């Protein structure tokens, strides 16, 4: 019993939970920033910059805007962070043997969505016009990118006849996996609010988006939660679409390489494109995302 509790605490706090994922997430964010800078001919930040940003915010004074419910204002970042951490814990990444249960992929999808909902609410409660514009955009984008994202997961579940991550992971690699992976990849930049889909957090356009009134440790928690979201999304890609290797070391190396590849892809897309309007992005996801989703679903149904 004690050992089991110890394992859970370890999973939540160290790996694949808070600490390990934070280190990985900050690393990915650094790569994104550094690579983006290099592609734009800039020098880019030092290695520890995301960590420095986080620590600096922790040291700041918290200001709750007038007219905002303080309980909600304080709770939202922590809800986002907690949901993401528990999402990380239920994914069987290398070095983490988790007991898979029926329907855990649905729980994962739900937990993936919680930070988005927190962002939308943060924007709405902020009493700032920028926050509210951002909240509206974020909610709309959710309706757009979830088309290919959910279709990818449903197609995989259809092929494996299961909603268990464990079963999905050991599903045979085939046409459906490839098509579903493409549909999933199409959704990733919008889910990470990266260019050309940096619409909800459009800097220079709507200031800082939904986080415009957030400051100090609360903003730091939101930033941390975003870093963990990156890891969680890559984790989901890894367990759904990448063949499972038997050797733990090889599997860990593959996990790391796939994540690096994803962040490089996302950054490359961000560096080479300009921000779309909500309408354009929405059309993109319902046309091209819809096509990718349709292809994956069709392959799943036929196969």
């Amino acid at each position, binding site marked *: 019993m004690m050992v089991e509790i110890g394992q859970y605490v370890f999973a939540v706090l160290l790996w694949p939970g808070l600490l390990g994922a934070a280190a990985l997430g900050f690393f990915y964010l650094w790569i994104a920033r550094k690579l983006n800078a290099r592609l734009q001919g800039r*020098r880019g930040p030092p290695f520890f910059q995301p960590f420095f940003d986080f620590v600096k915010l922790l040291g700041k004074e918290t200001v709750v805007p007038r007219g905002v419910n303080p309980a909600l204002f304080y709770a939202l970042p922590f809800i986002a962070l907690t949901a993401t951490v528990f999402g990380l814990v239920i994914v069987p990444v290398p070095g983490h043997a988790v007991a898979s249960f029926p329907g855990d992929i649905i729980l994962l999808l739900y937990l993936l969505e919680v930070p988005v909902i927190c962002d939308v609410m943060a924007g709405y409660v902020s009493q700032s016009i920028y926050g509210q514009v951002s909240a509206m955009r974020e909610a709309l984008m959710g309706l757009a990118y979830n088309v290919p994202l959910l279709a990818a997961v449903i197609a995989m579940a259809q092929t494996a006849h299961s909603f268990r991550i464990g079963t999905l992971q050991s599903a045979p690699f085939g046409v459906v996996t490839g098509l579903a992976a493409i549909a999933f990849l199409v959704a990733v930049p919008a889910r990470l609010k990266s260019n050309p889909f940096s619409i909800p957090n459009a800097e220079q356009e709507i200031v800082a988006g939904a986080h415009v009134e957030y400051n100090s440790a609360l903003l730091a928690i939101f930033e941390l939660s975003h870093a963990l979201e990156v890891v969680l999304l890559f984790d989901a890609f890894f367990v759904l679409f990448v063949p499972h290797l038997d050797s733990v070391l090889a599997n860990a190396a593959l996990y790391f390489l796939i994540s690096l590849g994803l962040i490089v892809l996302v950054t490359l897309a961000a560096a080479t494109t300009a921000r779309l309007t909500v309408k354009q992005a929405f059309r993109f996801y319902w046309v091209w995302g819809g096509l990718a989703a349709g292809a994956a679903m069709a392959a799943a149904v036929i196969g």
Partner: protein
Amino acid sequence: MGIFSIVWRNFGRSARTRHPTDMPPTASTFRGLIEQDVGLCTGCKACATVCAPKAISFDEEHETGITWNFFAGQCSFCGLCVQFCPTNAITNRGKLPPVTGDQSRLRVVHEIRYQPCAGCGRPIIPIPEAALEQVYGTKLTGSEAAQRELCPECRRKEAVRHIHDAFLARGG
């Protein structure tokens, strides 16, 4: 797809931005932080009057003298105080203010001490010798030098005595 060749070229080249330790030298006209030589200050308050952001102020509460207070955190580096200081006590030599969150490091307090008037002993701030030398070009001697250490009241009396000696005493 020209954008891909652009980012690829950027990736291959070295960065066009500079490292913080590799900044170009500051221009010779760069104003920077002001410095005050308390030995030249007469306490006329011209600097405090022209200072738009009120970075310079005087404090007269003390027993021993008045203080010249400068807060770099409020300074806009406009250089008006330098231009208006009649004795050139304030200069700027392009020194950068410290980058710090510690406000005490941005504050300068100089005390301009009272001296007793050579006549009546009231506390006064005499015009510094160095400042007078700057104005006259030579070192002051005799009665002029002695007058420097008098309060305005005693100086007036001295002037009246001069006039009296010059016109009345000689004639009488």
